[in-house]
């Protein structure tokens, strides 16, 4: 058990580190550096800056140092809670992000829970009633979910909401709560607005998850322990829910490692279409404006969220699967 925990932990930390490197690369990728971009911005406002000033700024931000020193400096600053300055917003990156990180977590978590809530019963049904009309129908609906990209679905629903109900279905808050500080009313308002975007984001991952659950359960249904349980007189429903479903749940839980990147990815683009106050829209804005510290930080946050989420699911798996707890299997 400890070996599993340690291996997963080391892997998570290693991946986290790799994500910081990748984010840093993305920050560095665009031609020119921070000062160039800043100059370009000042030039638009017709402010003149001398060469000396530029050099001074480069020195201040250590942009004249070798790349690995810049990386270490960037990392060091982050550990001190300084994520840099957003040029676009003229604010510290953390201030720009505000509670958008939390909103991203809320929306994604909502989407993950919805994905499971939909995929689990359907997967069970499809496996137990293999090749029934219901099985085919769900497979078909699943394929539609797979085929319709979530941002198009969001667009379509926005359009329908607008045309049919003359309502803007976007956003996570009603206008009156948008700028309010947090209160119970605001939380209730959030819960009221959350299901639709969460559903849109959830839908495309659902098809694959149904497929996984169905296949896992079909495998388990053939195992001798099911025959044993049946031979002991348990009713079909009770025995299926208690044994094979429970066993098939373990690989299902481990799908979160696959699901999270998928859902966060979808949340970025769907948030943009539905103008949700999450990281997605400001990521896009910052990338278009080449506001790289903001963009890099957001990508880092999204990447870290998946790594942390996957690690949590690994722990969850350890908790629910005795085979892992007792070190009998290496991976979930």
């Amino acid at each position, binding site marked *: 058990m400890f070996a599993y925990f340690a291996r997963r932990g080391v892997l998570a930390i290693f991946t986290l580190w790799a994500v910081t490197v990748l984010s840093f690369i993305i920050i560095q990728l665009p031609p020119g550096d921070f000062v160039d971009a800043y100059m370009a911005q000042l030039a638009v406002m017709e402010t003149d800056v001398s060469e000396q000033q530029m050099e001074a700024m480069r020195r201040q931000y250590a942009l004249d140092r070798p790349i690995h020193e810049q990386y270490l400096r960037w990392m060091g600053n982050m550990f001190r809670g300084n994520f840099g300055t957003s040029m676009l917003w003229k604010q510290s990156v953390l201030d720009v992000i505000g509670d958008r990180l939390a909103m991203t977590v809320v929306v994604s978590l909502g989407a993950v829970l919805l994905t499971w809530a939909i995929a689990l019963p359907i997967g069970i049904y499809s496996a137990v009633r293999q090749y029934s009309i219901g099985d085919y129908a769900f497979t078909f609906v699943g*394929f539609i979910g797979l085929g319709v990209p979530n941002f198009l679905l969001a667009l379509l629903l926005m359009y329908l909401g607008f045309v049919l109900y003359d309502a803007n279905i976007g956003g996570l808050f009603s206008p009156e709560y948008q700028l309010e500080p947090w209160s119970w009313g605001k939380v209730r308002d959030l819960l009221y607005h959350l299901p639709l975007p969460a559903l849109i984001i959830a839908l495309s991952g659902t098809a694959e998850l149904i497929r996984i659950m169905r296949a896992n359960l079909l495998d388990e249904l053939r195992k001798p322990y099911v025959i044993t349980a049946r031979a002991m007189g348990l009713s079909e429903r009770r025995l299926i829910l208690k044994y094979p479903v429970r066993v098939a749940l373990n690989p299902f839980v481990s799908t979160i490692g696959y699901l999270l990147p998928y859902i966060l990815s979808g949340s970025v683009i769907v948030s943009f279409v539905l103008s949700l106050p999450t990281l997605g829209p400001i990521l896009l804005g910052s990338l278009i404006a080449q506001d790289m510290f903001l963009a*890099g930080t957001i990508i880092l946050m999204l990447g870290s969220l998946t790594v942390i989420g996957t690690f949590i699911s690994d722990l969850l798996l350890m908790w629910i699967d005795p085979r892992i707890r007792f070190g009998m299997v290496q991976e979930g």
Partner: protein
Amino acid sequence: MSAVNEERIFVASQWRLMWWRFRKHRVAVVATVGVVAFYLVVLGADFFAYTDPNTTEAYRSLMPPQPIRFFDDGKLSPHVYGVVGKRDLTTFRRVYEADPSQKVKIRFFVRGFKYEFLGFIPADRHLIGVEGAQVEESLFILGTDSLGRDVWSRLMYATRTSLTIGLVAVALSLLLGVLLGGISGFYGGVVDNTIQRLIEILRSIPTIPLWMGLAAAVPRQWSVEQIYFAITIVIALRGWTGLARVVRGRFLSLREEDFVTAAELAGCSRKRIIFRHMVPSFQSHIIAAVTLAIPAMILAETALSFLGLGLRPPAISWGVMLQQAQNIETVALSPWLLVAALPVVVVILAFNFMGDGLRDAADPYGV
């Protein structure tokens, strides 16, 4: 099963067997026909378009689709009504009215703007056109966009871009995937471990943000072609991981098989073993995996272009067309701007069904 039949199966080649199994999947076969149809549009985009996709005309902006009328006086004679546009003085939008007195006949295989078929055969025939009028000014079967460009014609060119970008990106991914996955599976050990960790890391970062971050680095001033290739590279940088996993998995299971050992004992070089013996024996799996990877690539381009980080005008792709539908008020008044969503959905489904069929046919006992 009769003995003759059994005999036939026994001697059938791997491909023949795969085809027989594939044929049983009705949906997959239909999907394949659909995919082929789409690629015909790719080849003949200029022929299927009737207006140069980049002719803009402000006085025709956001024109709704024209209904096609098939009968005239009880006779089959497809035509559309002429359209007059004027500006609404209260909303300042252009409004359009059909003029039933003005019938524009639709004709097939007519001459129109000049193009080079397949890139080198000069031609000017188009699938449809009109009689006795300028096609640019009279035919808008799917309406026009905000710059007054014909949506149908743009859709044809967009299909060409979006579907080829999928293929090029998948080809690049395949190259990387076979190379790295193969190395990983064949050598094992430290090499395998390193490549596996790399794949895991790439897969743990949400794709769209990663793609967005990489695509944003493509310089603005690049030409359409340069951006096209830059975007395929960006997509492939993440896309190879899935294929590499398939290749590695097959390599690992094949490595244990007798014929590879036999080849090794016979003194074949490793390169020769890989390319002469192992690669051919899992081509069918690769083909299935590639087919299933293409829709993700197409979707990546569409999403990036939709967000304004992928292809940029004057390039035309489904994503570029959908960019005009970003604003919900525009969509509400001109829903035909969403039409590019339809081929996206159809193509994704078609590739998925086809890929599923291929996968089952390649590996009937696998999961």
